[in-house]
């Protein structure tokens, strides 16, 4: 029995310390997903917490034959998709923030909040990296919640079509269509805005 399986079994029995070890192991992938989906460090943190709490409550329904990471990310994805759909009915949607004149400033602040993997001691390179992250988030923000989740799972988690389909409750064919549509949308943004720090061929 692997250590992870033991932690899951102990957590199922109500052992919170064992669940804490699972949180430790999966906090980066879960947080990265919520951040890519919501585009805001504060909301991403809340969403990651909520995803872990939901996972703890639903541990009894976890199928041990399925990778825990995949199950965990599926919970986080669905939670973020729900949050993004709720945002449509509020005045301050992510899209509005981007469209606002000070959008880039607020986005830069948001990015500064995020704990980015940089490891680069050069301040200019760090700033450039943060700007790039900001551009990526702006582009992701233009996609529909499910397309955004599909792109995130595909690029940051190297998920296959089948894994993306399984996580988001879609068919493989729908995943292909969504990835295609998302890429076309992102390509159009490059066309419209020209410079996104991209080096076109």
């Amino acid at each position, binding site marked *: 029995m692997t250590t992870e399986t033991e932690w899951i079994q102990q957590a199922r029995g109500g052992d919170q310390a064992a669940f804490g070890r699972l949180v430790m192991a999966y906090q*980066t992938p879960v947080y990265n997903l919520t951040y890519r989906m919501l585009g805001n460090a504060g909301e991403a943190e809340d969403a990651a917490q909520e995803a872990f709490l939901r996972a703890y409550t639903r541990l009894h329904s976890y199928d041990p034959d399925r990778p825990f990471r995949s199950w965990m990310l599926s919970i986080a994805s669905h939670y973020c998709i729900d949050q993004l759909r709720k945002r449509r009915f509020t005045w301050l949607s992510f899209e509005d923030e981007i469209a606002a004149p000070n959008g880039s400033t607020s986005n830069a602040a948001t990015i500064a909040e995020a704990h980015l993997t940089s490891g680069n001691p050069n301040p200019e390179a760090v700033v450039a990296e943060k700007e790039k992250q900001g551009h990526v988030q702006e582009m992701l923000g233009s996609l529909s919640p499910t397309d955004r989740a599909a792109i995130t799972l595909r690029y940051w988690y190297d998920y296959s079509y089948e894994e993306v389909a399984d996580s988001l409750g879609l068919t493989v064919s729908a995943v292909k269509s969504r990835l295609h549509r998302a*890429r076309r949308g992102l390509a159009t943004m*490059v066309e419209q805005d020209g410079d996104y720090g991209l080096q*076109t061929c």
Partner: protein
Amino acid sequence: METMDCKRASRMMSLRLDGNLDGAEMTRLDEHLGECSACLVEWHRMQAIDSLLRATPMVHPPLRLRVQVMARLSRRDQARRAIIGGTALTLGTVTLALLTLAPALIGLLNGLGIAPALISGGPETLSQLLLFGSTMGRAVLVLIEALALPLAALIMCSLLMALAVNSLWIRMVRRMRVRS
């Protein structure tokens, strides 16, 4: 060879970026890209997007995330335990009060002769049932009249006891939360 339309070419570009095109399909796509400048531009842009996303690293959570999750989990469990404990205490107190009241009720029914009448006669006919009902109704009225004051006092005592026990319980849970 069948010529490829731009719509299909676009779909194939996406599949190609995922490494899901076989050699023959790739050749057909390349042939199309050689002939269609609009698709070639789209392909270059898609490649650029692909490179950017692949080169963007994961963001790391703040160090406090795990601690916050565990704190929320602990608070939620305490709240759940407090609700279950409070409900159990209230039910227990009410049951205790009813058990205290039960002998008095039975004694009164016996004293009024209702219980023996119920056992010997029984609700055999509708008239008997009606008679039984009216007798019971009268008994309740007499009971309320006779026990109005002591009953009210007993209920008040039970409620006060339940409130006191619950407030003690809530204080204890709060103290536990502060300590944790």
